[in-house]
């Protein structure tokens, strides 16, 4: 009940390897797991940690994200005192426009930081799917007398050669080193681009880093702090698995992971629902001829064909004789008769004409951009 943390979500990441999936939307608005957007998991985690004042920093292509969030009502974030604050770019003359990095974004939105009343702030990117209890992270922060607490994971699936940030954390939980984009990571702790800090301290840090000419929070500011040991930086391990969405391949694999019950149980806790924008769809209709196996199916679909090892978003239609295997099919797609699809990701509102056959190589799925008819 005690509301001590303000949340801040940065949605300005540019991840070229997500190709057409993020050309028209920010990663935060990337559709995942049949009915969600990436930001739903971050918002829901925050809400379940009693964080009710959340700022969302927008960069470009943020229409779908704004449309998704609406008035914030689905997350009970439409209050006048607390709630969701959309922080779009280009809003005032102080605003620098395109952010080179998180630090720029923080500087442009320093007013939000100042106006908030909470003592602590949790800042996170939006390209990692995870579930954390921020109140536990805060407890850890306080117990360790930390100035800054970084969230990290030991999940090996988050490691990348030549990319990512890795932390050297000692037995006491203190962070000593941060590696940026190493060709082979030395440390087993992958930094999750999320941290917790006293709000006033963050304001100070941003002010000073900007005068030093920095743009990047981790690469420049954090590295600098660790080097001169000016603050106590601790690490908090995110329990369980995390899913990093940094390429079409990792996006595909992450979604497919959720066909396994244990992975669903890691993220979907019946007592802590993941909220998302509603569509008021009716249940999915399995007509005669439907043959579905090992698949996650959202509401509003009409299924007359075969679906295997796949994820169908809301309102997808599978016509008789069609076969969809190892696919992710986003909302309102229409798969006409006798289509055969495998290893494909269909963005929203794609129509696949009768008798079409399309198969990607396993592990390197094809992407069909939004609203295309093929």
């Amino acid at each position: 009940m005690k509301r001590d943390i303000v949340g801040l979500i940065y949605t300005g990441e540019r991840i070229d390897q997500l190709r057409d999936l993020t050309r028209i939307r920010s990663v935060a608005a990337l559709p995942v797991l049949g009915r969600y957007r990436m930001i739903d998991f971050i918002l829901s985690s925050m809400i379940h940690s009693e964080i009710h004042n959340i700022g969302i920093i927008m960069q470009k292509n943020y229409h779908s994200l704004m449309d998704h969030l609406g008035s914030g009502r689905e997350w009970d974030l439409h209050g006048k005192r607390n709630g969701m604050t959309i922080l779009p770019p280009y809003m005032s003359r102080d605003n620098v426009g395109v952010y080179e990095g998180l630090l720029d974004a923080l500087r442009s939105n320093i007013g939000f930081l100042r106006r908030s009343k909470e003592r602590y702030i949790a800042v996170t990117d939006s390209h990692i799917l995870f579930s954390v209890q921020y109140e536990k992270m805060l407890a850890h922060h306080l117990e360790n007398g930390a100035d800054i607490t970084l969230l990290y994971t030991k999940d090996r699936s988050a490691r990348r050669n030549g990319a990512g940030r890795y932390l050297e954390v000692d037995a006491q939980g203190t962070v000593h080193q941060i590696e940026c984009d190493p060709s082979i990571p030395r440390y087993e702790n992958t930094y999750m681009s999320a941290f917790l800090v006293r709000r006033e301290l963050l304001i100070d840090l941003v002010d000073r880093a900007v005068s030093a000419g920095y743009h990047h929070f981790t690469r420049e500011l954090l590295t600098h702090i660790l080097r001169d040991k000016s603050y106590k930086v601790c690490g908090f391990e995110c329990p369980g698995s995390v899913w990093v969405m940094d390429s079409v391949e990792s996006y595909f694999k992450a979604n497919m992971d959720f066909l396994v019950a244990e992975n669903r149980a890691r993220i979907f806790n019946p007592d802590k629902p993941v909220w998302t924008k509603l569509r008021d769809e009716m249940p999915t209709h399995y007509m005669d001829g439907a043959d579905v196996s090992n698949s996650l199916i959202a509401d509003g679909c009409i299924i007359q064909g075969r679906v295997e090892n796949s994820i169908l978003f809301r309102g997808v239609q599978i016509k008789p004789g069609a076969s969809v295997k190892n696919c992710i099919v986003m909302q309102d797609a229409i798969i006409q008769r006798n289509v055969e699809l495998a290893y494909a990701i269909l963005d929203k509102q794609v129509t696949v004409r009768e008798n079409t056959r399309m198969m990607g190589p396993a592990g390197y799925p094809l992407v069909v951009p939004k609203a295309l008819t093929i």
Partner: protein
Amino acid sequence: MPRKKKCVAMLLAGGQGSRLGILTRHTAKPAIPFGGKYRIIDFPLSNCSNSGIDVVGVLTQWQPLELNAYIGSGSPWDLDLSSGGVYVLPPYMKAGAGEWYSGTANAIYQNLAFIEQFNPDYVLILSGDHIYKMDYADMLAHHIEKEAAVTIAVRQVPWEECSRFGIMNTDAQGNIIEFEEKPANPKSNNASMGVYVFTWQKLRDLLISDEQNPDSDNDFGKNIIPTMLADGERLTAYSFNGYWKDVGTIESLWDANMDLLQTPVPIDLHDRSWRIYARNIGMPPHYIAPSGEVSGSLVTEGCVIKGSVKGSVLSAGVQVEEDAQVIDSVIMPSARIAKGAKVIRSIIAEDAVIESGCQVGEEEGDITLIGNNTVLKAGTVVPAGQQVSKEGSTT
């Protein structure tokens, strides 16, 4: 705060609905799950919202708790408004005394002050036990055009069923000239749907004088409408031809659910121009396991299907385990059908557990009903037409 409204809707969410047996023992009828994602009350509330009627009073005195929690602030139906919205209205104490609602007209009478706050020109009276999609704005326009005191929505029913309804006999202009309650020898087959538009000033006066009549049952069908006919008021009929189904009995509730599986479907809930809204429960998409088999069925969020589901309607969070069979049945939220159990032509209510090896229902005969939170011990056999609640079983 309340503002003048052209039309206010009053939904008679009613009494105990005992024809639904153990289903309504702990749940008000309008809160009963329907069609996998909905509750019965979603239909009139969504109709109001889609018709642009944004003040709805829900009159209830039986188990309002679940209904209260379900309606909440009214946001699922876009009825969480400062200038209107949805209000649950149980009876209340006045000047030291209080009384329960004695009849449909009395329920409205007891809430005169509620209606007066909005100073409406018209009042729409609805009942809470039918599945239908209807544009009340169109009915209201009809009422205004006809300059009627009351407009009654009517629907043609099969002649042999007339004796179950209030039958409206009209002249060539559509004016109602006679009203017969459940006639043995009907003159027409226009049945009242229990949906009325009243000119508020007329209704207000009628309710006040009806209340002063000690012989009245304070009921719309039995008292108010006959009085209006006798007084020579203009009563018009508004013909409705769409899908309209009573869900007041176990059989009809099961039937209406099964209607959603027909092709072509008699009531299209995919229709985006007239959505039926429902409160969302925040569950992930449903999962069909490699061993799962689903056909001719509706399945929704949170379900996990490892067995076989045929010709059935499954609500949120239902689990069908390996080798379980669900056939021609309605499974309400979070019920679990354990390994090897077989459910046929049955309604399984919320949170019930059908343990492994049970046999519920039969291919022929009446619908079988397992009540809320009932745990059916492994191997139990429940024959057709029986009702089992956690308190025990009845036939």
